[in-house]
C-alpha cells in the first residue's frame, strides 16, 4: 500500500526524495571532504611515527612550542627508535598570502618518499637555507632566474621540487629546521616531535617518561591525537552541523510532500477508514511513505555525493587536496538523520490523517 501510494504520485514522491537526496549529498560531501582533509593532516604527522609530542593545551599545533633538544633526549631512551622535530609555520609569497611551511631535518622521511621532479634530496641540508617546494607550490611560487623564491621578507635558494601524495605537503614549502626557526623567530623550538617506537616497546613508556620529565608537554598515540585534537574536532563538528542543516532543509521538502499528500487525498484516507483501517494504520502508512521517500532520497544522495567527490578528485588542481572519506559511520549518520527527518516531517500529516473524521471527510468537496 505504501509503495503503491508513492508510485501513484511519482512527481510528488520525486520532489520529496530529491530534497532528501540533495541534503544527503551535501552532508556526505561536506563530511567526506573535511574528513578527508583531517586524514591528510593526520598523515603529515604520522610519517614513519606512532606518536606525536606537542605542548599541552596548545589550541593549534602552529602555536605549540616544543624544545628541539627533546628529540635527542627521546632518541637516547631505549623505547624510542627515532624522534623527529617538525616546525609548522605559515609564510606569504608574492600573490600568495598563505603558504604552509614545514621546518624539518634533512633526515626526515617525507622528502625521501616523494618523487623528485627537480634537484635531489642531497641538496636539502640542515645547515643551509635551500628549500624544497612541493609540486603544487612550485606552480604558484615564482622561482626567479637566480633559482630563488621569495618567502616572507627573505629569498631562499630552491634545492628541488618534489611531488608528494599529500595535498597539504604538495602545496607547501620544506625548509631546513634551523632556517625555519630563524625565519619565524623560534630558535631552538619546534611544533611537534614525531616519535617512532623501538621494537617491543610500548607507547605507555613514552607517556610516563614524558609526564615525569616534561610535564608541560604531552605525548599521544596517533589515533589518540586524532580523537582529542581540538582542531579536528571543530572541523568534524562543523562538517556535521553544516551537513545537518543542509539535510534539515531537504527534510522540509519531505514535510511539504507529506502534507500535500495527506491534504490531496482526504477522501481516500476516509475511505480507507471506512474499509477498516485504524487510526494507527493510517498514521503508520503516512510514516511509512515518508520513511520510504527518505530512504530513496538517501540512496540517491549517497550516489550523488560519491559521484560529485570523484569528479572533484579528478580535477587536476584539486588532486592531493581531496581525499574523500565516506565511511560507514557517515553513511549510518546520514541514514539516521534521514529517518529522523522523515519521522519528524510526517508527524503533523500523520496526526492530521489519523484524526480525520471519515464521515466529515466524505462530505468534503
Amino acid at each position: 500500500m505504501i509503495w503503491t501510494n508513492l508510485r501513484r504520485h511519482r512527481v510528488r514522491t520525486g520532489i520529496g526524495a530529491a530534497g532528501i537526496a540533495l541534503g544527503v549529498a551535501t552532508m556526505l560531501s561536506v563530511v567526506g571532504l573535511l574528513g578527508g582533509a583531517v586524514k591528510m593532516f593526520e598523515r603529515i604527522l604520522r610519517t614513519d611515527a606512532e606518536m606525536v609530542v606537542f605542548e599541552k593545551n596548545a589550541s593549534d599545533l602552529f602555536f605549540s612550542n616544543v624544545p628541539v633538544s627533546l628529540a635527542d633526549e627521546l632518541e637516547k631512551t631505549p623505547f624510542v627508535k627515532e624522534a623527529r622535530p617538525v616546525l609548522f609555520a605559515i609564510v606569504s609569497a608574492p600573490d600568495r598570502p598563505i603558504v604552509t611551511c614545514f621546518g624539518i631535518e634533512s633526515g626526515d622521511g617525507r622528502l625521501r618518499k616523494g618523487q623528485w621532479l627537480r634537484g635531489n634530496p642531497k641538496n636539502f641540508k640542515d645547515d643551509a637555507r635551500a628549500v624544497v617546494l612541493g609540486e603544487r607550490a612550485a606552480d604558484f611560487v615564482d622561482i626567479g632566474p637566480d633559482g630563488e623564491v621569495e618567502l616572507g621578507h627573505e629569498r631562499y635558494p630552491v634545492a628541488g621540487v618534489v611531488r608528494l601524495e599529500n595535498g597539504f605537503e604538495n602545496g607547501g614549502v620544506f625548509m631546513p629546521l634551523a632556517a625555519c626557526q630563524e625565519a619565524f623567530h623560534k630558535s631552538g623550538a619546534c611544533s611537534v616531535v614525531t616519535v617512532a617506537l623501538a621494537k617491543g616497546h610500548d607507547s605507555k613508556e613514552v607517556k610516563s617518561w614524558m609526564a615525569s620529565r616534561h610535564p608541560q608537554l604531552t605525548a599521544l598515540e596517533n589515533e589518540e591525537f586524532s580523537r582529542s585534537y581540538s582542531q579536528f574536532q571543530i572541523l568534524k563538528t562543523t562538517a556535521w552541523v553544516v551537513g545537518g542543516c543542509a539535510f534539515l532543509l531537504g527534510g522540509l521538502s519531505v514535510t511539504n510532500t507529506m502534507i500535500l499528500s495527506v491534504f490531496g487525498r482526504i477522501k481516500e484516507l476516509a475511505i480507507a477508514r471506512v474499509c477498516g483501517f485504524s487510526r494507527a494504520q493510517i498514521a503508520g502508512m503516512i510514516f511509512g511513505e515518508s520513511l520510504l521517500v527518505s530512504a530513496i532520497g538517501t540512496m540517491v544522495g549517497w550516489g550523488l555525493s560519491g559521484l560529485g567527490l570523484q569528479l572533484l578528485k579528478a580535477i587536476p588542481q584539486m588532486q592531493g587536496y581531496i581525499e574523500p572519506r565516506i565511511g560507514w559511520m557517515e553513511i549510518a549518520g546520514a541514514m539516521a538523520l534521514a529517518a529522523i527527518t522523515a519521522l519528524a516531517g510526517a508527524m503533523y500529516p500523520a496526526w492530521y490523517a489519523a484524526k480525520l473524521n471519515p464521515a466529515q471527510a466524505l462530505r468534503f468537496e
Partner: protein
Amino acid sequence: MKSHVSIKDVWKSFDAGRIQVLKGVGLEVPAGDVVALCGTSGCGKSTLLNVISGLEEVDRGEVFLSGRDVVNESTRVDLLRHHIGYVFQFHHLMPDLTLAENCMVPVIAAGGSRAAALERLNELAEATGVAHRLKQRVRELSGGERQRGALVRSLMNDPELLLCDEPTGALDESNRERVFEILVDLVRRRGRTLIMATHDLELAKRCDRTIKMRDGRMEGEIL
C-alpha cells in the same frame, strides 16, 4: 456472528447542536433483513447509516450491532473490518489504482490472506459482472462498473451487514436496476443484512421492509 442492528433513542446534531439531524431515532433490524430507508434529502438517512457504522458518534442514545456497543474506537474498527460493508452514492474508488487493487484495500486493513482474498475477489467480480475489468484502472471504467466495483470492495471481508447510501443514486436507469438486483441478490443468497438509504420508492418497495424517515425521526414503515 449474525448481525442484528438495535438503535434506541439516538440523537445526533452538527454545528455544536445548532443542526439537529436525528431526533430520538429507534430501529430494530433482525439478521437477514433487507431494509430500505426512505425520505427526502436532509431527513437523516445518511447520518443514521454513519451512526450505525460508528463513523459518526451519537449525542445521545444507544447503537448495538449483534449486541456490541458501537462506542469505542477499537470496536468500531473491528466492525468496519469484519462485520460491516459500506457502499456510497459515489463509488469513492481510487481512480489511479486498478479495480482489483481498490478491492484489496479492506483485505489489507483486516490483514487477511491474499490468496483467499483473490479467490473471493474473482468470485464477487464474476457475480457482479466486472471480472473482465479487474485489471483496468478505475478511471477507465463506466459509472455502473465503478459502482459494482465499490459493491465488490464492500463485500471483500464477507460482512454480515451491508450499509448502502443511495447506491444507485448516481446511475442511469439501466445501471440502477442492474446494480440493485446484484446487490439484493448477493445479500439474500448469503443471508446478510442490508440497510439501504434511497430516494427511490420503486426500489425501496422491493426490499423486505421500507422505513420512512422525516425530519430526523422514523415516520413508520410502508407496508
